[in-house]
């Protein structure tokens, strides 16, 4: 079938690329946005825009007195707080009742203020979309993305093997040669970010390995898969006694934890079986200053505040937490986070340029076009410009939907999918009309530009926090999102205008030839 190993690898690379680029593009684009999920929270949830507070926070005063009212006085299995950090100057309270009902609210770090209900899923929507595709049935979205990551790794290795001039072409971009420039862009982004792409797909698979490879866990733990998780993370568990009991000072436990870790800061505190004599408190260390996701969790007795257990991870679990930390980016270093964001976008460029190169080559080989080319053009258009359009439409809707709207967060999600569908329908219409089966790239780019500007203006109009004002008030996350949106608007306008001028020139040339 193939004359050489290189040819077979080329076929494999193309087959996987065409078949799975769509899923990988969603994962890379949404994953890149998820790097700044808390900054997007701040932009999409204006009620959470508070200036950072330097004063230490007392959980005994700030949270404990409000637990009953925040959870409607129901008996709880657990409640927890995420503590403020450099990226989110807020406390996040969550509680779960014995029946499994959940409560979630943001609290201001000082004073008695409980922030109003969110009315938006914020950055969490993009984060969950990047690894679940929002398909919960049988975890089908996560399984599909797992398959895409696995074959993506194979495509990456095959891509390196078929790249005959890997070093010679390392800095080569033939911008004036089409479609060669697309292949150059595909190779450049693929080669420069090769370690990132490899690690991010591998760790993406590793994080969810119990879902993808459950047989080993089931063989050892049978029906008690939770036990595996508890043992792997060296966690402490004890059941509720059924008799009431007091809860000692949480501030005292946090002080003990700080002393135990040396220079570490707590990031998360959970109270198990609150109100029970067997209550215990779990305190995790912030991973903001390192790569590993190992939280070095400490467990305290709820009644006496004495240390019950320190989770010391086995070597394998420690390695796993390090690799998981490389993927989930819990560290706070702003420059490293920016590089993760850029590397994620480079993955999008690699996948997008690969698809476009494949399309252009097919177009040259079949000058009159065929149904296959038209459908692939629609597919790439829906992904490359449709997905950013939908994202921007969601941001605009976030600022335009009335605050009191019932199920407001669901409306935002519907706008996202609606805009994506609309962009795809528009692309289908344009491709069907065009004799060359071209996607409406220029129109979509110009629409992206308009929506990005509209999002910034809407934010300034509805909250008064235009970029300059946001910087003045210390809201760097809001100013950052706005400035990135303006950058996107400029870039998309430039690309859209160039494509529009070029298509005009091509039409004029066609008229001269036909005339």
């Amino acid at each position, binding site marked *: 079938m193939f004359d050489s190993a290189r040819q077979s690898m080329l076929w494999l690379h193309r087959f996987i690329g065409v078949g799975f680029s769509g899923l990988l593009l969603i994962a890379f684009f949404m994953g890149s946005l998820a790097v700044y999920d808390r900054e997007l929270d701040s932009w999409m949830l204006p009620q959470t825009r508070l200036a950072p507070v330097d004063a230490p926070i007392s959980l005994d005063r700030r949270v404990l007195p409000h637990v009953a009212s925040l959870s409607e006085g129901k008996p709880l299995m657990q409640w927890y707080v995420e503590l403020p950090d450099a990226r989110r100057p807020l406390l996040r309270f969550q509680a779960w009742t014995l029946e499994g009902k959940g409560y979630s609210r943001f609290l201001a770090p000082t004073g008695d203020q409980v922030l109003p209900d969110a009315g938006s899923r914020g950055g969490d929507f993009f984060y969950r979309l990047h690894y679940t595709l929002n398909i919960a049935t049988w975890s089908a979205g996560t399984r599909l993305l797992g398959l895409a990551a696995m074959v993506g790794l194979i495509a990456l290795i095959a891509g390196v093997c078929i790249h005959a001039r890997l070093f010679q072409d390392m*800095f080569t971009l033939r911008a004036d040669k089409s479609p060669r420039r697309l292949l150059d862009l595909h190779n450049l982004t693929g080669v*420069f970010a090769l370690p*990132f792409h490899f690690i991010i797909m591998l760790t993406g698979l590793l994080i969810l390995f119990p879902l993808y490879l459950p047989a080993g866990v089931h063989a050892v733990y049978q029906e008690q898969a939770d036990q595996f998780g508890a043992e792997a993370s060296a966690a402490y568990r004890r059941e509720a006694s059924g008799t009431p009991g007091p809860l000692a000072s949480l501030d005292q436990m946090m002080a003990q934890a700080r002393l135990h870790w040396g220079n570490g800061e707590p990031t998360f505190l959970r109270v198990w079986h609150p109100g029970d004599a067997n209550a215990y408190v779990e305190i995790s260390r912030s991973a903001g200053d390192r790569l590993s996701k190992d939280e070095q969790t400490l467990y305290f007795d709820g009644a006496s505040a004495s240390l019950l257990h320190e989770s010391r991870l086995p070597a394998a679990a420690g390695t796993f937490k390090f690799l998981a930390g490389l993927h989930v980016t819990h560290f706070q270093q702003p420059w490293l986070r920016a590089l*993760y964001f*850029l*590397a994620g976008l480079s993955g999008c460029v690699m996948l997008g340029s690969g698809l476009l190169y494949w399309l252009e080559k097919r177009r040259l080989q079949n000058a009159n076009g065929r149904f296959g080319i038209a459908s692939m053009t629609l597919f790439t258009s829906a992904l490359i410009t449709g997905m950013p359009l939908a994202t921007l439409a969601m941001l605009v809707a976030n600022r335009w939907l009335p605050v009191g709207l019932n199920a407001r967060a669901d409306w935002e999600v519907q706008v996202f999918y609606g805009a994506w569908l609309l962009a795809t329908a528009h692309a289908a219409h344009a491709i069907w009309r065009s004799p060359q089966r071209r996607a409406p790239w220029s129109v979509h780019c110009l629409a992206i530009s308009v929506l990005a500007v509209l999002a910034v203006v809407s934010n300034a109009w509805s909250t008064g926090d235009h970029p300059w004002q946001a910087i003045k008030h210390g809201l760097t996350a809001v100013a950052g999102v706005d400035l990135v949106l303006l950058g996107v608007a400029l870039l998309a306008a430039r690309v859209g205008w160039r494509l529009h001028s070029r298509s005009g020139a091509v039409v004029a040339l066609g008229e001269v030839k036909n005339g």
Partner: protein
Amino acid sequence: MVEGLSSLMVMILQVAGLSMLALSQIVHWRKVMADEAFPGTRALRWGALSALVLAWVLSQAVLGFAMGTVFWFLGLVPCGMVVTLLLCWRSAWLRGVGRLFGT
């Protein structure tokens, strides 16, 4: 502030190192330096290696071994693209790097 400036310095060193690596290919040298004699690959590649190692050492000094190494690898993405785009559209801007090795 210090961390930010040091991170910027790491990336400047990476751009310098990758520029030398690019110029060590005769095609790029001719595009940037026109008629100036090619100094050979050895000097340029040693220069590139030194700048990139220095960037790696500096990133570790600032961020520690693990984070510094990840920073260095990820820094290659924007720095490599900057060098490529300069070679493509503003090749004259790399003349300064080439002159360091000119005869």
